[in-house]
């Protein structure tokens, strides 16, 4: 399945094989079929599009598979619901930093999206009469008044179901998969004939490192989709897999593009104590309660009425406030650590319902805490979970940049982004639970459909999508050569590994040369300390200083400890660490500039939301430059956000 040629050409290359990437691949193939079978096909390309899905992992390993709670849609299978309520909840949940045109599409297309997933094979949990079962989730309400059962689920492993189903459906089509390929460069070509003197950039292709062989490949494609997921590894305590190092965002910054709203990081309130492993919000949706050291169900004080089902940022801050007030509890597994957890009490749910509705949550608690959720209280603390910001895209998934002087938007031709690495923005300053899979599938599919239509149009008019193939090839060639030189340097200046026999006693006197694993850990600890649930100008400045003066130089100095090219994981890790530092700096820069508190971002020095100055999306580039654009408001003017 994995291509073997060194220089490749595809109609579309998708980076990432999670929900967004696979939805995009299916979107391309299905829309192409629709075009072929429509009464007056606009573009009748004889052959199906040639699509390559690249993943740095094996098939089915993507982090989509760890999503637990569900996918939101106003299906009304259990109680009356409307897409307008879903739309409004999404806007409110995002603290009005949501582009309402995009959120409207998300809510409107949600029901058909969930039905399509069901038709594709997702084993949804069912109501007694056979319909898709739905449960309550934080921030999802009936007309803003009371929690509503909007979230379709498959026990508590909806992500696993969706990931596997999308991959299965991809097997129907002639889609190529390049497994364990790491994209090192996103290559854009530039021509200077654009209007107003602005450089027009378009997608040219990617340079990839084949992990199995250590060889580089150059892949030319007029359509590229970045669907690499989030960047939870920016923080030490995270629900994210080890692979969420912000690769797509780092690639965008490296190729001169920008990140939007990168200062908004969601901390999920219920990570399993110090492991950071997610305990799904479904645990509270099913009746779980947060309690402080005194046993008080404290969320009723912070969010009367909705209580434990308030939006995630509200709950995360409430937990931190309880801890700060001395009402936290210890993680029993780390008895010497500060009392920085609270209890999650699932006992009232009962063993039988726990096992049927929350099997993964229960297994995680048993496996990683040695506790029985039916009888024991479970220690939880907020865990870095989701990046609301990302590569700026429009509602067809097209990536754009903002001119920092004029504020004008310019689309990068042929380049799209979808899923967590993108920012549309449907999540604004805080994402509602069960909206992330929805975002990835809805907008992944839309990106794919749009690519198919463009390909069809190119075929019909006889034009190549890549208007300047020569420029694309030249850009790819330059990028390939530069990367080859860099990889050779990383491998051939390999550092010695300290002999294991000499450890650990030798570690203090003769420390092992730096490595990317230690670097990423140190970055995460520093970011968590200075840019976590709460921050101030002082802590942000400290983070920026450390990133510039300590971590950037360390990242540049990294070399592998082994010169073997095949499956040299450290080689990839060095590139990941560099992406992580790059994205950290963008995040810190955007945080410093936003002098307000909104959604997931809480600045103790600016504790109030400031719509007069900051009802706007931030755009930051790799040079630390920043600009803002106003939020799109169509139906719901900003209100005070309370639950």
């Amino acid at each position, binding site marked *: 399945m994995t291509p073997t040629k060194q220089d490749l050409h595809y109609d579309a290359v998708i980076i990432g094989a999670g929900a967004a990437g696979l939805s995009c691949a299916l979107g391309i193939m299905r829309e192409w079929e629709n075009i072929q079978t429509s009464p007056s096909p606009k573009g009748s390309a004889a052959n199906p599009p040639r699509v390559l899905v690249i993943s740095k*992992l*094996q*098939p089915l*390993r993507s*982090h989509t*598979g*760890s999503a637990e709670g569900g996918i939101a849609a106003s299906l009304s299978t259990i109680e009356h619901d409307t897409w307008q309520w879903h739309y409004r909840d999404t806007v409110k949940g995002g603290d009005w930093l949501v582009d309402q045109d995009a959120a409207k599409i998300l809510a409107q297309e949600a029901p058909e999206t969930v*039905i*399509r997933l069901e*038709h*594709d*094979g997702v*084993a949804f949990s*069912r*109501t*007694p*009469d*056979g*319909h898709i079962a739905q449960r309550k989730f934080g921030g999802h309400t009936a007309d803003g008044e009371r929690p509503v059962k909007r979230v379709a689920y498959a026990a508590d*492993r909806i992500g*696993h179901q969706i990931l596997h189903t999308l991959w299965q*459906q991809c*097997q129907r089509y002639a889609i190529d998969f390049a497994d364990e390929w790491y994209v090192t460069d996103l290559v854009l070509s530039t021509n200077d004939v654009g209007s107003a003197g602005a450089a027009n950039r378009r997608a040219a292709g990617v340079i990839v490192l084949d992990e199995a062989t250590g060889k580089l490949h150059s892949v030319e494609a007029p359509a590229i989709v970045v669907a690499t997921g989030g960047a939870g590894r920016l923080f030490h305590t995270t629900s994210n*897999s*080890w692979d969420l190092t912000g690769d797509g965002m780092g690639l965008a910054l490296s190729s001169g593009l920008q990140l939007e709203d990168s200062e908004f990081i969601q901390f999920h309130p219920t990570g399993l104590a110090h492991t950071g*492993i997610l305990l799904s919000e479904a645990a509270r949706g099913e009746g779980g309660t947060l*309690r402080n*050291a005194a*046993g*008080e*169900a404290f969320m009723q004080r912070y969010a009367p009425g909705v209580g434990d089902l308030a939006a995630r940022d509200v709950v995360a801050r409430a937990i931190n406030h309880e801890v700060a007030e001395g009402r936290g*509890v210890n993680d*029993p597994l780390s008895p010497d650590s500060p009392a920085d957890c609270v209890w999650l009490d699932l*006992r009232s749910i*009962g063993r039988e319902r726990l*096992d049927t509705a929350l*099997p993964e949550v229960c*297994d995680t608690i*048993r*496996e990683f805490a*040695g*506790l*029985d959720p*039916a*009888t*024991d*209280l479970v220690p939880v603390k907020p865990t870095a979970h989701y990046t609301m910001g990302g590569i700026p895209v429009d509602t067809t998934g097209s990536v754009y940049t903002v001119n920092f002087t004029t504020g004008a938007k310019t689309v990068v031709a042929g380049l799209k982004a979808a899923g967590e690495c993108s920012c549309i923005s449907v999540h604004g300053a805080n994402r509602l639970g069960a909206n992330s899979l929805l975002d990835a599938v809805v907008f992944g599919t839309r990106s794919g459909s749009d690519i198919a239509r463009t390909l069809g149009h190119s075929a019909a008019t006889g034009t190549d999508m890549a208007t300047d193939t020569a420029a694309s090839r030249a850009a790819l060639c330059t990028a390939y050569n530069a990367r080859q030189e860099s990889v050779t340097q990383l491998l051939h200046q390999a550092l010695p*590994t300290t002999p*294991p026999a000499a*450890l*650990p006693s030798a570690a203090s006197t003769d420390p*092992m040369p730096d*490595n990317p*694993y230690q670097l990423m850990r140190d970055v995460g600890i520093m970011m968590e300390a200075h840019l976590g649930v709460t921050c101030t100008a002082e802590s942000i400045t400290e983070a920026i200083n450390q990133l510039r003066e300590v971590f950037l130089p360390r990242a540049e100095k990294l070399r592998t*400890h082994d010169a*073997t090219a*095949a*499956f040299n*994981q450290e080689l990839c*890790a060095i590139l990941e660490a560099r992406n992580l530092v790059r994205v950290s700096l963008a995040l810190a820069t955007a945080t410093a500039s936003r002098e307000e508190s909104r959604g997931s971002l809480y600045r103790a020095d600016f504790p109030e939301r400031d719509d007069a100055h900051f009802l706007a999306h931030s755009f930051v580039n790799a040079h630390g430059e920043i600009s803002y654009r106003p939020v799109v408001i169509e139906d719901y003017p900003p209100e005070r956000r309370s639950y």
Partner: protein
Amino acid sequence: MAALPPHRAQFRHTAPMSAKSSVDITATAVAPDAVTGASTVTPADTSQTTVIVRIHRFDGHASWQQDYRITVPAHTSLLDCLLLIKRTQDPSLAFRYSCGHGMCGSDAVSIDGIPRLLCLTKISDVQKDAEAQANGISVITLAPLPAFSPVRDLIVNLNPMLDQIRRLEPYLRASDALRTTPSGAINVFEYLQHPDELEAFDQLTNCIACGVCEGACPIYVDGTPFVGPAAAVAAGRFIFDSRDDPQSRAQRLAALDHTANDPIDTASSSNGAAPAGIWPCKGLRFCTQRCPRGIDVSGAIWKIMQAIKENRGRVAPHSAVK
């Protein structure tokens, strides 16, 4: 699939233990009758322990064993041990990992000779079983997952398994009559599926394609022509799904029955033996015993065998469903 156990917790957590809540808050909001009896979980062992992790290493040419000595809490997972070694002792050590909590299926290796996931195995799970001692310190031996070719250190080539899964056309083929409305629009409603119909295949959808069942199966490891437990589960997930078209189901069963002209059995097709579908399974149940997702793989294979027998003669093998 009523014969399958209701949940994997039954496999993994058996020791009865007393409740351990360190704060008594039963007086607050919880109805006393909601708390159902004693805990059934072995509490985590937080004591520090020193072990030697002995790793089979391979760089594509040479292979050797390398020992790493670490001191960590006994509840530490072997994945966290390896990450500690990678970070503090040897960054060149190669092993696959991703989510770290048993959902992605990346980190199946042989731990003291038994295929398991690194992230779901704690030192305290294996230390007492570790027979080898070095100067009084337990030795935990890690080797690549059996049945697959090592590529580097603990990384193996899993493509034979993935190929077997892919060849069995692992996607739902629901009846077209339900898929579109008379006007050609996509059916706006879900296929109805009652909870008991879901129960018939739900457990099989939990498969994470980690390969533990294949590494645990003596027949598969031996290279006998055999479709293998992982591909059987992947196909069974559709065979027992009430939404899959009956004709599609019949063809799935035929494909697993006997595949004289079809190279589905890739486990050892290179040795020239005739393919044998699902039948080499002898019900040894190591797959069921080892599955980190608690899937009764062996039970599912047995049910597929019964369904194949009922299906025989109803369909010509390999007339493709389009």
